[in-house]
């Protein structure tokens, strides 16, 4: 048996449809040539099932069976990885730029020259220890120095707050995206389970995954339902099927950002390994380190200058006067069983003797190791620990003042520390009190107001030397050469320039890492583009191809038509 003319007519008809489908696809491809995330679509052309005829199997035509989306999933994965690197380093780099601006010593204005002026003012005073003008100018340069340090620290606080705000908006956006991915999962699954390729939806999902990985480093894979499962690097699901799980942002006691997985409040800070979120968290650590450095520098400045100044003598014979003042942070642990409250005041007779125990401006803790028996205490119920060095220290005197419900500790020449408690609620074992000289040193340091009377600025090291003795002014001026910082390894200036250098090299590393990752992203984008991008030349060529095939099929129909007429005329 042989196939009839109608078969030829039919196969040409199928050809016309198939060529038309492909021309439609070309039209869609050309139309989407500039659509971000669009993957070129290609029709899969197949022959229809043949019929058995006498000569053999005879083709019955053509059909466009599927539409393929040209997207390389592996390049896509690589791209996600590099996107998250770009995100990480660009976020950190931007924050470091701010930090760098705070510490910009490359210009003509920075803290270094201000410190220099401060030391110079002491030397000017040493040159004219009788001078009032020199004292006034010294106090002023001290005020400039403290104002600079205060404002640098304020800058850092602001930057830290901004980082927090950026983390919040970033997490909001990421949550929004995981929500969208979950929704797309649902629609893709519905379509593809019915054997429809949901190419455009997949393109959108890929785009979202790409953007999300710029924010947070993620792993993702497609399950048997064509749904994309998105996991954080510690395996917490961000998207599971058509469900998404949010991240949430909170702040800890030190106002540090704390990101957590809202499903069970798992802390995520340490498990975010890439993306802008990591970059911002790192940037916050950078800012914290800079704040710590400023605190250390300020505390050391205050301590060293005060120690010498309080032993010197002003023009009017005053002594034991502090040069700098700052807030001391006192904390009573929230879990304490007793109701003791820590108080501190600067003792009269600050003469330099006690400077080496409590007043070396570290952080200290008073820990009770036993219940405090008010009235019969021995002073062995608690230990005082320098938390910076870990050493235990001893107060120079301990008074168990049960009448006034207080524990009084004196540190020679330095400070009175007392713990006041209510009747019968003396500190219990395990109670903890802490005091920090360092914590608020940078934001609160200021020149002692008493020195507004310039005669109280001490230049003389000896009461008998007034007014011509310049011993104290000289030794304070020489502090700039002393190894006062980093466990007596560097001077103030060296310490500060190492801080600036470190921030500079961090910023440099961030920017070169960002450049590198951006280059990689670009390469991968080009690769992906090479697979999924639309080439107009190609489309046009294909258009001509399908156009010709279309014309040819039409011609065949005409020919068959003529044949049919011949047949009918035969009748």
């Amino acid at each position, binding site marked *: 048996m042989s196939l009839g003319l109608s078969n030829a007519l039919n196969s040409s008809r199928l050809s016309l449809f198939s060529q038309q489908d492909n021309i439609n696809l070309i039209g869609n491809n050309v139309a989407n040539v500039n659509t971000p995330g669009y993957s070129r679509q290609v029709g899969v052309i197949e022959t229809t099932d043949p019929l058995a005829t006498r000569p053999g199997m005879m083709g019955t035509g053509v059909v466009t069976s599927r539409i393929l989306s040209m997207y390389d999933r592996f390049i896509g994965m690589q791209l996600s990885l590099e996107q998250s690197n770009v995100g990480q380093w660009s976020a950190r780099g931007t924050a470091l730029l701010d930090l760098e601006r705070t510490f910009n010593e490359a210009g003509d204005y920075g803290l270094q020259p201000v410190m220099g*002026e401060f030391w110079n003012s002491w030397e000017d005073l040493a040159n004219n220890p009788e001078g009032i003008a020199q004292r006034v100018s010294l106090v002023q340069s001290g005020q400039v120095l403290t104002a600079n340090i205060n404002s640098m620290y304020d800058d850092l606080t602001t930057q830290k707050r901004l980082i927090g705000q950026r983390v919040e908006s970033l997490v909001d956006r990421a949550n929004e995206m995981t929500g969208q991915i979950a929704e797309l999962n649902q629609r893709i699954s519905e379509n593809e389970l019915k054997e429809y390729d949901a190419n455009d939806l997949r393109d959108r999902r890929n785009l979202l995954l790409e953007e999300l990985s710029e924010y947070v480093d993620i792993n993702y894979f497609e399950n048997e339902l064509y749904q994309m499962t998105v996991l954080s690097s510690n395996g917490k699901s961000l998207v599971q099927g058509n469900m998404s799980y949010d991240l949430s942002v909170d702040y800890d006691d030190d106002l540090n950002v704390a990101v957590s997985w809202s499903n069970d409040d798992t802390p995520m800070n340490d498990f975010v390994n890439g993306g802008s979120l990591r970059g911002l968290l790192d940037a916050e650590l950078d800012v914290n380190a800079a704040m710590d450095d400023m605190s250390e520098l300020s505390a050391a400045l205050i301590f060293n200058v005060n120690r010498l100044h309080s032993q010197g003598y002003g023009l009017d014979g005053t002594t034991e006067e502090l040069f700098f003042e700052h807030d001391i942070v006192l904390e009573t642990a929230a879990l304490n069983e007793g109701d003791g409250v820590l108080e501190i005041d600067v003792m009269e007779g600050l003469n330099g003797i006690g400077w080496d125990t409590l007043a070396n401006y570290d952080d200290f803790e008073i820990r009770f190791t036993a219940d405090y028996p008010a009235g019969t205490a021995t002073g062995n119920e608690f230990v005082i620990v320098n938390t910076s060095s870990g050493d235990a220290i001893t107060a120079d005197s301990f008074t168990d003042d049960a009448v006034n419900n207080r524990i009084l500790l004196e540190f020679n020449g330095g400070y009175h520390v007392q713990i006041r408690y209510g009747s019968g609620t003396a500190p219990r074992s395990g109670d903890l009190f802490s005091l920090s000289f360092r914590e608020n040193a940078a934001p609160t340091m200021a020149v002692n107001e008493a020195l507004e009377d310039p005669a109280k600025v001490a230049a003389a090291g000896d009461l008998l030397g007034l007014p011509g003795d310049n011993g104290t002014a000289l030794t304070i001026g020489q502090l700039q050469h002393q190894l006062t910082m980093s466990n007596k390894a560097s001077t103030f200036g060296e310490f*500060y320039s190492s801080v600036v250098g470190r921030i*500079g090299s961090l910023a440099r590393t961030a920017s070169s890492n960002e450049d590198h990752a951006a280059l990689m992203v670009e390469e991968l984008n080009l690769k992906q583009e090479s697979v999924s991008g639309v080439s107009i030349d190609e489309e046009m060529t294909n258009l001509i191809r399908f156009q010709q095939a279309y014309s040819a099929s039409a011609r065949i129909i005409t020919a068959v038509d003529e044949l049919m007429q011949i047949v009918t005329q035969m009748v």
Partner: protein
Amino acid sequence: MRTTNNQMFLSVQSRIARVEEQRAKYLAQIASGNRVSTPSDDPVGITKVMSFAAEDVRITQYGRNMTEASTWLTATDQVVTDGVDILMRAKTLLISTENAALSQANRDAIAEEMQGLLDNLLALGNTNNAGSYIFGGHRTRTVPYRLLDGVHGTVLAGDDGRRNIELAPNQLLMINTIGGGSNIDGREIDGLFKQDKTNEADARDLYALFSRAIAELRAGDNGDYRASTAVDTPVSRNLVSGDLSFTITAGDGSGAVEVSISDNPLYAVPEAVVDLSGATVTDEADAGQLAAATNAWAINSKMDFEIDVTGSLAADDRVSAFLRAEVDGTMIRDPGADVTLAAGALQINHVDIGPISLRDVGTTAVPPDPDPDIAAANVREIATRINEQSGETGVWATYTGSGTDYRLVLTSLEADGEEVSVTVDNAATRNYTGLGAGGGTWSGTTLADPSTVADPDTLTAGDLVINGVDIIDPDGTGATLTLADWATADVESLANVQALAAKINAVTDRTGVQASYTRNAANDYKLVLSGSADIEIALDTTPDTASLTGLSAGTQNPTLPPGAWTTVYHPGGRQEDSASPGTWNYDALNAAAPGSEDFTVYDANNGAVTLAAETGFVVTEGVSGALAETLGLGINDGADTWAAVSVSSGRQEEIQRYLDHFGAVEATVGARMNYVDRTTATYEDRSINLKAFVSDIKEVDITQAIMNYNSVDQAYQATLAASARIFSTSILDYLS
């Protein structure tokens, strides 16, 4: 590989962007001139830039330090150079006096020129550099040298404080001149114009040398001049543990200086710096505290009294004291309202003390309550005004008292107690300042004949006659003297003995006898009589009188045997050995334990100072003589003359010694100036180098940057051209 349109766009875009970024970077470098504008541009470089820049800032400061050092050293150098000229001229003048034929007129002319040279010398010693006296040690605001009189040279108000400046990190240079280069070892406080005082014979200064030479020239004493020593300048010695315990108490009203350990502190301590009452020195720590306290007090009261302690006091540490004589103490009153005493209202020694502002202290009846702070401020204000003029008046003021009740104490800087004249313009001023118009002079007594004064009664005319003068009723007016019963009160026995002494002293001009007293124990006082010759005492026959006055009838010779005498000090702390009058022996007193009879009175008439248990420093072995000297209580009475020296040999030799001394100082100062100049030059070079280093790191090489820019710019153009070519053809062009 497939190439798609977007791929081409993307790669062209990123290529152009990259080239543009480079272009912008070089453009910014050229525009700003800086290669490094943020720390990240060159993190290593920036730390170097910072340290170089910091060093440059320091060097700028060292430059200022150097200028300061230079002005001091130049000023010192000028003084030394001028001083050498003056000394050379003086030497020439003195050599010219060797001519025996020189007339007195010529000698007067030479004396006149010497006087001029002396004035020049004094001005040199008081050279002031930008408000600081360069020879004052640490006391840079006090005129260091002040002429005392023609014999005693100068008072040096300065100390041996060093003025250091920093020339390099941790490297100090001393820029002032204390002492000198010649004899530093063993030298005490010592300026350019003071010579080594450790050797007693040389305890004189350049001004004294000149003064004496002038006096000798005027006196016409040709070639045989007597040199007397001057020891009324502050001197020092080592105090050791247990040396002294003292407080300083008010004058007893007779105008005499008393130094006693009674319970009444003389000087209330201003601003409660320290209370000296009852202070006892028993060990080094005490001595240190006392010295520090005394200094604090001395500085606050602006009184010229100090004890110097160097470092922490050990057994051999140096302590010196400098005490002036007091002449007057008066009450200060509350002005009742804020007042300003006009200029001219108060004059001391004919010097106008100027306007004095006083504030209302308040009253108890009406609020505000009396404010002790204001009262203290008032008396301090008066004292301060007076002290500001002390250079002219020769009078220092300090004050005593507490609460709202103060006494002003005027202190003569002249150790031999010249009269202080006080002029006040009206009663108000007198009340407020507590000073009455008029003057105060010194008086005092010496000698002793201790006797016990017995229980009191009333003495009448004839009961006590000394050298023929009736002490109780000298003018026949029927005066009597009633003595209080002191059975219970020690104060009354004190009042009794004071009254007796006052009676005797009232007629001193007739009897030639002065009386004083000493305290043995509670209710046990001893009357002390002194006179130039034998003292004849007549008592009436009533035994009571003898026991009441503690005197017995008879003739007493002041030259009493050893033991009966109290110790008499002559100026300079020398002690006349009572066993061999006329010889000076430092150790006679020291050999004997100080008895409670020992007694201290200062007498301007014969320049004697006596120390006693109650009224002086408690003196233990080995220190008493030197202590008076330490306190500057001794003055030169002219009695202790020394071997005659001639102008031609002695004075010239001394001047030569000063010339050597000046030469040594000049060499030292010159060496320091060279050092400063050299360091300055080094720093100038270093500063230029530093700037170059900073510029190397921080600034851009413009040529290099322009070349970079050009090559990047070319690449940019090429990229654009190539890109245009890529886009120029498309299959669309060929489809019709």
